[in-house]
């Protein structure tokens, strides 16, 4: 190991010495440690080969740490990063503060019109595009075809919540550690609240009414949370209140979940035979509904954006162009296979027969993304946009605290009523502090 490290260090020095000959611009990229971004980092040699005058520095952090770092940096104009990985929640808020560089002048080969309209709409503020989607996702039902068969049930393409409950009951076999349903329980606005907010939409619940009054005291929220708790306590895995996306992914890959309603990007992980023990037994369906006209699926994209304080704006754009281009997709496909390309951003990908053949989940992913409506998320009209979030600066803080109350309820530390009452109180409080 030491020899290897020494060699690495030596070769790194040699590379640096060679690179120092020409004037180099350093582009510092803050990104999240998700599989697709790690892959991007691994493939970055392709970019530096094309652009020897640009040096890439990677700051790869776990999602919560990343979010805290980039928000802190952009809010106080620290200028530490040239490219930031942010989500569809941050983009409109930051763009309104003029914190992001517009990407309108991306070259025509990059083909902005190819970006899926639902995703592009969320990244556009006043007609200007402020971030380039790296991958996009909605949520859907992933289920074990073998367990469904064993339970004597058949999953429709568009199930209802009642059916999900029936199926969960049928598939649960706690003695052999198979739990009918795995859902997010870990507190966080991007964890359990992403799921619950999207779910609540299909139950007719909403965060705020048109006067920005918190709605956790509504009957619809109570039904939502009661239904969720009922599912999870009877058919969920132990310790569900600390399970987020990653924990559930791991459970599903180990064959411990009958169904999992979560991000569509997970589809390529659960069907990858290298990581998943159930790769060939997974089926997909749209997120459930209750017949009220809205489904419980969200819309999200991880995007790359250039902060206004960057001192390497052009180089940063060059990098973003590379990372979100069609040719990057082809690069990944040639190295890792079509099933592993970053999904959910471009129309052309869903017209590519190679991709459709390699990715059995492609159609359902596209349908789910198209079924989400961020401007009109709930059954009733609401004053905000965002399906599983509310696009106001205060939401991250409020969402996480509400998430903690719901998570505590799932852990059995308080009742549904208590959790909702606390959520209502703290949301009202925070909204007041923000001046609504």
């Amino acid at each position, binding site marked *: 190991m030491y020899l290897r490290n020494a060699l690495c260090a030596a070769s790194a020095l040699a590379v640096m010495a060679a690179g120092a000959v020409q004037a180099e611009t350093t582009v510092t990229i803050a990104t999240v440690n998700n599989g697709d971004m790690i892959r991007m980092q691994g493939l970055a040699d392709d970019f530096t080969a094309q652009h020897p005058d640009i040096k890439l520095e990677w700051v790869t952090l776990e999602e919560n740490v990343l979010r805290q770092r980039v928000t802190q940096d952009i809010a106080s104009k620290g200028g530490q990063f040239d490219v930031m990985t942010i989500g569809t929640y941050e983009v409109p808020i930051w763009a309104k503060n003029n914190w992001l560089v517009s990407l309108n002048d991306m070259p025509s080969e990059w083909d902005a019109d190819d970006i899926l309209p639902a995703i592009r709409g969320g990244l556009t503020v006043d007609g200007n595009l402020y971030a380039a989607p790296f991958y996009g996702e909605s949520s859907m039902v992933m289920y074990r075809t073998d367990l469904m068969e064993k339970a004597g049930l058949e999953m429709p393409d568009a199930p209802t919540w009642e059916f999900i409950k029936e199926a969960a009951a049928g598939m649960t076999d706690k003695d052999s550690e198979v739990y009918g349903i795995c859902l997010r329980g870990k507190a966080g606005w991007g964890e359990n609240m992403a799921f619950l907010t999207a779910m609540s939409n299909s139950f007719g619940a909403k965060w705020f009414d048109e006067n920005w009054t918190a709605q956790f005291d509504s009957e619809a929220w109570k039904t939502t949370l009661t239904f969720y708790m009922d599912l999870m306590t009877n058919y969920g895995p132990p310790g569900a209140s600390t399970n987020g996306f990653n924990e559930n992914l791991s459970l599903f890959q180990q064959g411990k979940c009958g169904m999992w309603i979560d991000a569509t990007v997970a589809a390529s992980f659960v069907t990858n035979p290298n990581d998943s023990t159930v790769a060939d037994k997974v089926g997909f369906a749209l997120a459930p509904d209750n017949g009220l006209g809205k489904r419980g699926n969200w819309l999200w994209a991880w995007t790359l954006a250039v902060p206004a304080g960057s001192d390497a704006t052009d180089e940063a754009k060059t990098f973003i162009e590379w990372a979100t281009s069609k040719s990057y997709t082809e690069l990944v496909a040639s190295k890792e296979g079509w099933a592993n390309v970053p999904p959910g951003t471009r129309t052309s990908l869903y017209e590519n027969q190679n991709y459709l053949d390699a990715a059995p989940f492609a159609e359902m992913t596209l349908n789910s993304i198209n079924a989400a409506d961020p401007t009109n998320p709930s059954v009733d009209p609401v004053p905000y946009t965002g399906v599983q979030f509310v696009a106001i*600066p205060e939401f991250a803080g409020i969402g996480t605290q509400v998430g903690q109350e719901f998570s505590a309820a799932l852990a059995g530390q308080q009742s549904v009523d208590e959790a909702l009452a606390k959520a209502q109180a703290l949301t009202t409080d925070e909204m007041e502090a923000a001046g609504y």
Partner: protein
Amino acid sequence: MATQHSRSAARIMMAPAVILLLGWMLVPLTMTLLFSFKKYLPLRGGDLGWVGFDNYIRFVSSSAFWPSVQATLVIVGGVLAITVIFGVLLALLLDQPMWGQGIVRILVIAPFFVMPTVSALVWKNMFMDPVNGLFAHLWKAFGAEPISWLSEASMQSIILIVSWQWLPFATLILLTAIQSLDSEQLEAAEMDGASPLARFGYIILPHLGRAITVVVLIQTIFLLSIFAEIFVTTGGSFGTRTLTFLIFQRVLESQNVGLGSAGGVYAIILANIVAAFLMRIVGKNLDA
């Protein structure tokens, strides 16, 4: 021996350290105080003007405030109790003659070197995970239902993790103190027929007074501000939101710097109350 000359020299020599620390304390503190009287929301344009004591009132009247003070004190108190009690017992054990004492000491001291982030990650995932954790395997092996440690016993779990990190520290200080104990005194007591318990209560424990004080003082300073252990494991859920963590949520998650700064001022006040309390005891004990 302290001449006028050496006094002024002493003052000059102390100056760099004192001035640096004064700056380190005053500059951020002044800015924190300043922010705490402002409506300061970076995501809504930054400084939105003076608001008087609004932030202070809002911070305390929030339903999260008192539970967070309580959580802070429970964690600090819990860890102190565990590390001192087990530290004394462990120190007594390690003081006994045995084979391989050096190696055992190395084993015991090791957790102190592990960074808090790493230890939190390791405990959370590899031990306390209700499905794949080692504890879950162990529970299942005995036919018991695995416990979801971080949600069902969140406080205990965090106290366990933090205690694991600080037990070596306490043990080592206490061990050194025990080793410095005059063994003739113990022998004399033994000859007089004092029971082991009596010897412990009347000779060893009083001798350890100073060492225990130091353990309590130093650990309290570090424990009041523990952050990584909570951030990594529960993220403040399940009643583990300490005052430090609450401020973190206000400043970084809600991006309400004014409110968070007011919280920071409260935390400083709390720290000073604890400090004053400790200093009184320590001051006395250090003189002795």
